[in-house]
């Protein structure tokens, strides 16, 4: 009998909770219409309201901050388990400045793509999203799908009204990079973060081993990929059969050797399109055309050479499988178990790499640093069209990217708790930092930050970082971004074909004699030509502008 009662109670509870849910359902559409009217009316107020702001640091146009607002902010790459101490300080500060309460959602590498795309597609109540050109290319994809507010919309220019300070502080190249074609025309759909924005592919050289073999760094510098053979053989002879001197990330190796550049909007990890640059002067126009990456003579030559190296035992076969390649790459790097490797460079990395690996590491550049669309869209902040307070969101971003106190607080945590400044004014982290480690490059303007210990001296950002990236030149088709909407079907098929052959060819695990023609035929069958034609038509249109 007891069981009977229990079961009835349980089912009653369930029914009740379900009805409660149904009640909510009716609320949803009502809510959303309300939202839209609120949004419209507040936008209207802003244009005619002339209330001067009491705060000097407040943005250019008067912002109505009489109502308290909560901003929800979706970030990427975080490792945060306890943000209470930081958020308390942040919200105290933001409450004073903007009457804003900040509620960060600490997305991780593990869940950002799935979590954020679901939230965007479902219209979740989130104001600001991290976005970029790589993770799942959220920036370009969702600008076309209507997820982002156009920030420089002529009718309601949020940047001009509330973001002029940060806009003035950004390098021009980042601003240009942010311009894309979205639902409200060509414009800026997210605020670019000021982080390393140049691309530079380098040979990662184990100088310690190189010198053991009787060579010097200049022997690598004077050679190119096609003439590495004797160096690699010397290492192989010295270290034995189980040693693979060439430590590669296959897809990067191909770009380094053939001087090709990723076409933004192309088929994900296995790109099928290529755009070539002149390795001596990256900004020089060498007859800009987009081609099928694998159909060129240059690629054939590369694939044949790589095959030769593979057969000679210079490349670990495990690096030909997508699943294992990066584990192997990383563990060989950390063990210093290689002679020459591939690495896309970030400023100052040789110091850190040498320390991590316990060997002397130098990076030999293949090209000067260059800027393309993909690299400028590395870390951006977009305001969601679902945001009820886009003005306040912009004002927050403006403050964040111009106010060293706020930026440092959010990036490094609370001074004295998460970090301390040492005698030279460098940041030294405490153990507490383990509970609060946002992804530094994923938040905004990192040049506002104090330098970390080991990164350089206290003027690192202003004296080294900024000039280095300012020296990076844009490639000829810098502003171009490929819009794949009309060829999505073909790209879906091409991604699969490329998945089958590209990596194996670039790592040399299959014979290009037989595999390459087969590959090209399959690409052709999957509509390669249509994609190239579409990309070139768009490129021509871009140059015609």
């Amino acid at each position, binding site marked *: 009998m007891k069981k009977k009662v229990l079961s009835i109670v349980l089912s009653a509870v369930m029914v009740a909770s379900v009805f409660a849910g149904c009640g909510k359902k009716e609320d949803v559409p009502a809510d959303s219409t309300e*939202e839209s009217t609120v949004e419209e009316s507040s936008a209207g107020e802003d244009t005619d309201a002339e209330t001067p702001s009491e705060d000097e640091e407040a943005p250019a146009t008067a912002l109505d901050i009489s109502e308290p607002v909560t901003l929800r902010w979706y970030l990427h790459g975080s490792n945060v388990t306890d943000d209470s101490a930081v958020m308390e300080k942040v919200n105290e500060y933001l409450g004073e400045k903007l009457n804003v309460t900040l509620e960060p959602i600490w997305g991780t590498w593990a869940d950002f793509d799935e979590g954020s795309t679901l939230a965007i597609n*479902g219209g979740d109540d989130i104001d600001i999203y991290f976005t970029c050109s790589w993770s799942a290319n959220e920036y370009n994809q969702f600008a076309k799908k209507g997820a982002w507010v156009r920030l420089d919309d002529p009718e309601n220019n949020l940047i001009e009204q509330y973001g002029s300070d940060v806009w003035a502080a950004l390098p021009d190249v980042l601003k240009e990079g942010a311009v894309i074609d979205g639902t409200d025309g060509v414009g800026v759909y997210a605020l670019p973060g000021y982080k390393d924005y140049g691309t530079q592919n380098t040979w990662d050289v184990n100088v310690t081993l190189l010198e053991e073999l009787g060579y010097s760094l200049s022997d690598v510098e004077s050679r190119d990929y096609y003439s590495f053979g004797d160096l690699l053989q010397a290492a192989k002879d010295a270290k034995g059969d189980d040693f693979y001197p060439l430590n590669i990330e296959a897809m990067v190796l191909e770009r380094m050797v053939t001087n090709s550049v990723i076409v933004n909007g192309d088929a*994900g990890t296995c790109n099928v399109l290529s755009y070539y640059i002149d390795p001596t002067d990256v900004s020089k126009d060498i007859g800009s055309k987009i081609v099928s990456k694998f159909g060129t003579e240059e690629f054939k030559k590369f694939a044949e050479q790589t095959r030769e190296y593979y057969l000679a035992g210079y490349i670990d076969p495990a690096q030909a499988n997508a699943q294992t390649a990066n584990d192997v790459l990383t563990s060989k790097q950390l063990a210093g178990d290689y002679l020459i490797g591939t690495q896309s460079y970030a400023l100052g990395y040789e110091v850190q790499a040498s320390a991590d690996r316990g060997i002397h590491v130098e990076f030999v550049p293949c090209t000067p640093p260059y800027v393309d669309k993909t690299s400028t869209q590395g870390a951006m902040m977009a305001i969601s069209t679902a945001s009820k307070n886009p003005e306040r969101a912009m004002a927050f971003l403006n403050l964040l990217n111009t106010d060293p106190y706020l930026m440092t607080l959010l990036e490094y945590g609370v001074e004295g708790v998460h970090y301390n400044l040492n005698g030279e004014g460098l940041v030294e982290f405490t153990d507490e930092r383990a509970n609060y480690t946002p992804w530094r490059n994923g938040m905004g303007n990192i040049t506002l930050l104090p330098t970390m210990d080991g990164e350089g001296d206290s003027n690192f950002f202003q004296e080294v970082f900024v000039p280095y990236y300012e020296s990076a030149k844009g490639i000829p088709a810098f502003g171009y971004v490929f819009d794949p909407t009309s060829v*999505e*079907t073909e790209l879906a098929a091409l991604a699969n074909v490329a998945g089958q052959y590209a990596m194996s060819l670039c790592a040399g695990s299959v014979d290009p004699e037989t595999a390459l023609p087969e590959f090209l035929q399959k690409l052709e069958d999957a509509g390669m030509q249509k994609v190239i034609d579409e990309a070139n038509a768009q490129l021509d249109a871009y140059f015609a502008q």
Partner: protein
Amino acid sequence: MSKTNSAVKKPSKMKSASKKKTLMLTTMVLPGAIWLLLLRYLPLGGIIMAFQDYKIYTKAPSFINNLKNSAFVGFKNFKFLFATSDTWVMVRNTLGYNLVFIVLGLVISVAFAVMLNEVTHKFAAKTYQTLMFFPYFMSWVVASYFLQAFLDPTRGLIPHMQSNMGVTVTDFYNNTKPWPFLLVLCNVWKNTGYSVVLYLSAITGIDASQYEAASIDGASKWQQVLYVTLPHLKTMIIILFIMNVGKIFNADFGLFWNVPLQSGPLYPVTQVIDTYVYRAMTTTQNYGMSTAAGLVQNIVGFVCIMTANTIVRKVDPDSSLF
């Protein structure tokens, strides 16, 4: 006794009793039914996405508004499934592997359940059954590491042995031949424990007196299995079979993605519909396309399941699904 009783009752009373019975049974169904309604039927509206160029309605973004304001594009989202010369390969692999998995899974699991039932040491039976379940706990990623320890071209156990013995070393991750066998083996390894439990608990429902009766009639152990155990398991076998047939167009993504380490040269024997769609999604991020692919898989599954069920119903109405 029951007949006389019910005959005495007035028809109206009988009616109200049967009404009450229906009502009580319906209250039992209700919690599950409401759950299904909310979490399964309500989202079905999303299938529209398969025919849409899904866009966010910028003025008031909510899922319903987005759906309402997105343009219909007909069957455009389905095209990518047929845009490649490999369509046949992935369909063949999906169907082929699934058929083998269904048949082999059934035979092995039933055989193991019957065998376990005959083990006289209960402790041994328990131990076997527990151990069999272990693979079910392990993700395909972990399984792939394990297999790699054997097959890895440079450090694996098998290539190592081969080179020690002076035989030519097999390059497993570049050679399609062993993979159909390996994938089937992996599937059996992982799922046998699960289905054995189902069959085993179905066997426990058999009345011991049936075996005794058979034994007294002089039936050998083998005959007892044939004439007592298997007929009793029939319903479970058929139900599991029908339900597996419904998933014939859906491959086990984790198996085909992780275990061959996504090695390109193995695609001809490892590419299945689910891996193709996944790779396509990493490129386009178009939910319409994945919804479309899912719809195709489900419709095929639905047709198969209905066919199987109709056949079963004709032959043995008691075992059919509905």
